């Protein structure tokens, strides 16, 4: 199946409270052919993950209401959402955050600044192809 067609069958959930970053991420992923839904806080992220069953979640760590690490834990504890891969996108560059995210079940961890959307698309495609 061609890449663009494959992407159009995939739904991504972008969880980000910074509207500037969220607008750009949603725009670039939509332009690349994905179906994209968005959440601005942890509560909305958990609700959308349960209701809409996205194929991949892009999760910021510093978000309101339920922080990113708690969202990650709850996603992995819930049988409905445990299988959904989570790509953590964070401004936090420390090794402790990276290790904790992986320990909590994140599939990948990317530092947001500086970000290149081609690298993000490559990572998203790779995660969606994982068995």
């Amino acid at each position: 199946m061609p890449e663009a067609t494959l992407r159009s069958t995939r739904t991504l959930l972008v969880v980000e409270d910074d509207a500037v970053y969220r607008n750009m991420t949603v725009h670039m992923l939509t332009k690349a052919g994905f179906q994209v839904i968005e959440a601005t806080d942890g509560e909305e992220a958990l609700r959308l993950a349960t209701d809409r069953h996205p194929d991949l979640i892009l999760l910021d760590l510093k978000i309101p209401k339920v922080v990113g690490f708690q969202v990650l834990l709850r996603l992995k504890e819930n049988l409905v959402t445990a299988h959904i891969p989570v790509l953590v996108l964070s401004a936090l560059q420390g090794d402790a955050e990276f290790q904790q995210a992986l320990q909590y079940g994140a599939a990948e961890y990317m530092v947001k600044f500086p970000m290149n959307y081609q690298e993000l698309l490559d990572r998203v495609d790779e995660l969606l192809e994982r068995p």
Partner: protein
Amino acid sequence: METPVLTTQTAPTFADLEPILAALAQWTAGDVDAIIRVALPSVLTEVPRTSEALEQAIEAGDLEAVGRLAHRIKGSVCQYGDTVVREQALALETAATEGRTEEFDSLYGTLQSGLQTFYGKCTALLEQLRADTAE
């Protein structure tokens, strides 16, 4: 979209705009359409909103909100290659974390000044790119 109005700054030169353009080109992998349609309009709309909320949080003495909103401004401008505003926002975020409320007004004033310059550069770049692509 309402764009902030420059009052006292002189018009930005190409040298002022080049770092922002370079950072946005890196971010978007060279997608000029995304820069014109989303990246620049978003920052010119959303950061002033966050800044207004930050001012209200300072007036209310809400330390958590001051720290969170300063952090958000810092994150928003990061992709635009502006280290001056980033450092100004970080100074306010740090003051909130450490409870140095007596410094809020001064740090917010400095941040506002930096943001006005930043808005001016983004507005000029947006106008330049729109003119270039219309040719």
